[in-house]
């Protein structure tokens, strides 16, 4: 962990470092957000893309550091989040655990508590959602529960901010005491075997930090670490037969050869016992809860999907309609910044570097911020209300046919707007393989930046009334190709047994504005910080490649020619010619020429090859590169009729089709590739993506070229 994160506290005072643990949807994040005067710190857990939130605050004489660990149902290491939590609890240094539980669903929540209790750490239980429990007439006897479990249990409510101080007081008093053994009681056969092992350890005066009882439980549970420790000890030879006997006894009692299952049942019956003792619920008539009423509409077999599609449509309308308003401002701002800063720099090269390289490049990244904010607000809303799980429920059937997961839908649809938020939203997929597969497919959904290229080519080769249909065909065929690619990847690279789909459908809740604001803000800042720095560097690189080496001879020659001609028109023609020749002999032009043979089978000339390569920086650049290369000046857009003419004159129909196919499939822009790499978690996935998309783009473009050539003859 990053040590700098903690330095906000002075070293002199008493520190308490707390690991906040709980099952998903118990309101953990909301609980730490309700601590007043808290100082939030957001980062990543090392090595994984799991947000790590640390909260720093002072209470009484103590400095508190609370680490909000990702929600986990049990220590099964099934998702990244579960692994992060488990590893943190086992390996990191902290003083105690606050286990947040949902008071309205105590029995299920205590299943995790039971696992925590066998860890020999100090624990405080926060009985969260006390307000909801009272509404549901659930009475919990917290003092009695504390006594039964040997763990302080404190009623709190993050929503009404009540009980927080009691919780912190309990934490302080636990911190000031010695670690107390939690009172986890098992069934008779298990207790017998524990006693046998404890007696054996005591007889041999085995030295250990943890209690003998704790060691015995961990041995019975097949805890690998405990095994490893004892395995090197001389007593192991005698202990082993005892353990084998003990395991047999326990398994026989539970009629199962799975010791984990046996222990889960042990925990469950212990929890049932606790709940029966401490929870009094006035029996109300079994009427449908609000959640069930909402569910009967939202996941209805007939209306569910149309309602969902309507929500998605609304979200995208908002994202791209409202998002485009500030986008114009941002665009104007960076244009203005370039115009203002440019003239103040005397040196031509440096001015070009700052204006054309840095400002233009960074501007392109900042441009997407409004989209990202709106989309993330939408996604945070969908997630925190509990609707996202319903979406997965509704769509899993369809997506499963293609090897994906119901929740893959959100990132894929987002991909039609921009791949960057799409890659980021793939985080909602909890399972590694599902998420990776989805990340690989997102690029097939043509993003908004590719639209100009399609518009240009559709305009050049098809009648205006056909162009709209062509665009639609391009988008749809991209999506279909994506589904096919998913199926192929699932059958090859991501082969293996299907990941099970077992998912909680949480209660519907009103989202907390503070929490949403916080999530959106941190995600946006992370996007700006990380993608921004990379992009700035990359823009400089592209700028350099397309501007160097300078050819003074050529520049002077044209300068003379431009001097001599009289009309503005002729001057423009000459300037464009110069730009073309300069680009041809620049590093980028050299690369284009060099790579021309590779693209020849697809019917591309060196200009198209270069355009494809600059498109790696950003897809919008493809159009402007083609404009420069076909000598029309820098200021071209997709509606520029002379560019359309130039293209229909210089490029054959078959080459154009192949070009569109490549644009549809090949590597997304640099910013997106960087985000992809970060979300995938390893640089090797970038190379896989590069290989996969290149091969797919090349072979499909090759087929398209040949089919189109054949048809047009």
């Amino acid at each position, binding site marked *: 962990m990053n040590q700098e994160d903690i330095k906000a506290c002075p070293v002199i005072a008493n520190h308490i470092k707390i690991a906040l643990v709980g099952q998903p949807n118990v309101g953990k994040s909301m609980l730490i957000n309700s601590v007043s005067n808290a100082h939030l710190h957001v980062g990543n857990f090392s090595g994984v893309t799991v947000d790590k939130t640390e909260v720093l605050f002072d209470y009484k004489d103590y400095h508190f550091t609370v680490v909000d660990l990702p929600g986990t*149902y*049990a220590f*099964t290491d*099934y998702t990244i989040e579960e692994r992060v939590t488990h590893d943190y609890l086992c390996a990191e240094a902290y003083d105690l655990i606050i286990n947040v539980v949902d008071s*309205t*669903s105590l*029995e*299920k929540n205590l*299943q995790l508590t039971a696992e925590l209790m066998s860890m020999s750490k100090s624990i405080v239980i926060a009985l969260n959602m006390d307000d909801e429990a009272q509404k549901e007439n659930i009475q919990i006897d917290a003092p009695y529960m504390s006594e039964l479990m040997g763990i302080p249990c404190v009623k709190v409510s993050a929503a009404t901010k009540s009980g927080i101080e009691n919780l912190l007081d309990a934490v302080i008093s636990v911190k000031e005491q010695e670690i107390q053994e939690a009172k986890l009681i098992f069934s008779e056969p298990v207790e017998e075997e524990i006693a046998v092992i404890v007696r054996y350890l005591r007889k041999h005066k085995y030295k250990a930090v943890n209690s003998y009882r704790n060691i015995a439980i961990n041995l019975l549970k097949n805890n690998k670490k405990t095994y490893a420790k004892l395995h090197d000890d001389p007593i192991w030879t005698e202990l082993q037969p005892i353990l084998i006997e003990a395991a047999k006894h326990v398994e026989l009692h539970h009629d*199962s050869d*799975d010791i*984990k*299952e046996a222990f*889960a*049942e042990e925990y*469950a019956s212990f929890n049932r016992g606790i709940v029966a003792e401490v929870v009094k619920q006035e029996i109300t008539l079994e009427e449908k809860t609000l*959640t*069930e009423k909402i*569910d*009967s509409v939202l*996941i*209805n*077999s007939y209306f*569910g*999907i149309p309602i969902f599609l309507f929500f998605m449509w609304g979200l995208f309308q908002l994202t791209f309609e409202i998002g485009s308003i500030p986008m114009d401002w941002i665009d104007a701002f960076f244009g203005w910044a370039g115009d203002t800063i440019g003239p103040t720099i005397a040196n031509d090269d440096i001015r070009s570097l700052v204006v054309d390289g840095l400002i233009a490049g960074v501007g392109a990244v900042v441009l997407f911020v409004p989209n990202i904010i709106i989309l993330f607000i939408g996604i945070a809303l969908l997630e925190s209300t509990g609707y996202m*799980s319903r979406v*997965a*429920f*509704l769509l*899993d*059937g*369809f997506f*499963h046919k293609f090897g994906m997961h*119901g929740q893959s839908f959100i990132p894929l649809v987002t991909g039609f707007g921009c791949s960057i938020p799409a890659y980021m939203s793939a985080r909602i997929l909890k399972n590694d393989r599902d998420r990776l597969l989805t990340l690989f497919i997102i690029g097939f959904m043509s993003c908004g930046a590719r639209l100009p290229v399609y518009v240009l080519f559709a305009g050049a080769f098809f009648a205006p009334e056909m162009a709209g249909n062509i665009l639609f065909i391009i988008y749809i065929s991209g999506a279909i190709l994506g589904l096919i690619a998913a199926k192929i990847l699932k059958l090859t690279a991501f082969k293996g*047994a*299907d990941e*099970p*789909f*077992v*998912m*909680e*459908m*949480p209660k519907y809740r009103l989202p907390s504005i503070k929490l949403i604001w916080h999530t959106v803000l941190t995600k946006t800042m992370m996007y700006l910080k990380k993608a921004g720095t990379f992009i700035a560097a990359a823009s400089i690189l592209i700028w350099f490649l397309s501007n160097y080496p300078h050819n003074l001879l050529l520049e002077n020659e044209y300068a003379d020619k431009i001097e001599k001609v009289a009309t503005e028109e002729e001057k423009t023609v000459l300037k464009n010619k110069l730009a073309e020749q300069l680009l041809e002999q620049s590093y980028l032009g050299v690369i284009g020429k060099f790579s021309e043979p590779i693209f020849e089978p697809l019917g591309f000339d060196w200009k198209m090859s270069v355009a494809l390569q600059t498109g790696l920086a950003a897809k919008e650049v493809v159009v402007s590169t083609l404009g420069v290369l076909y000598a029309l000046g820098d200021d071209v857009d997709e509606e520029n009729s002379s560019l359309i003419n130039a293209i229909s004159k210089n490029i054959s129909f078959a080459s154009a089709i192949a070009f569109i196919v490549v644009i549809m499939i090949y590597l997304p822009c640099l910013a997106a590739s960087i985000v992809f790499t970060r979300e995938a978690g390893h640089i090797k996935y970038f190379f896989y993506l590069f290989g996969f998309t290149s091969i797919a783009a090349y072979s499909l473009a090759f087929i398209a070229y040949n089919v189109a050539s054949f048809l047009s003859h």
Partner: protein
Amino acid sequence: MSTLNDCKKACKVKVIKLNAPADLKQRLISFGIMKETLIEVLEYAPAKSTIEVKVGKMRIALRAKEAELIEVEKV
């Protein structure tokens, strides 16, 4: 022998056995689905591909294929 997937909407059953592989079994157990657990079937997704059940107070979605691995009896 009947499985959770054979149950109709709104029927209540008790788990007899989990026939799932170890990973999935752990997953089910961590959601509170184990021997003796009472389950109520709430809803089916279109084409019956996914099923929503109620375990205690928790609603859980699982695929039909996974539901087939849960042996149940009517109560």
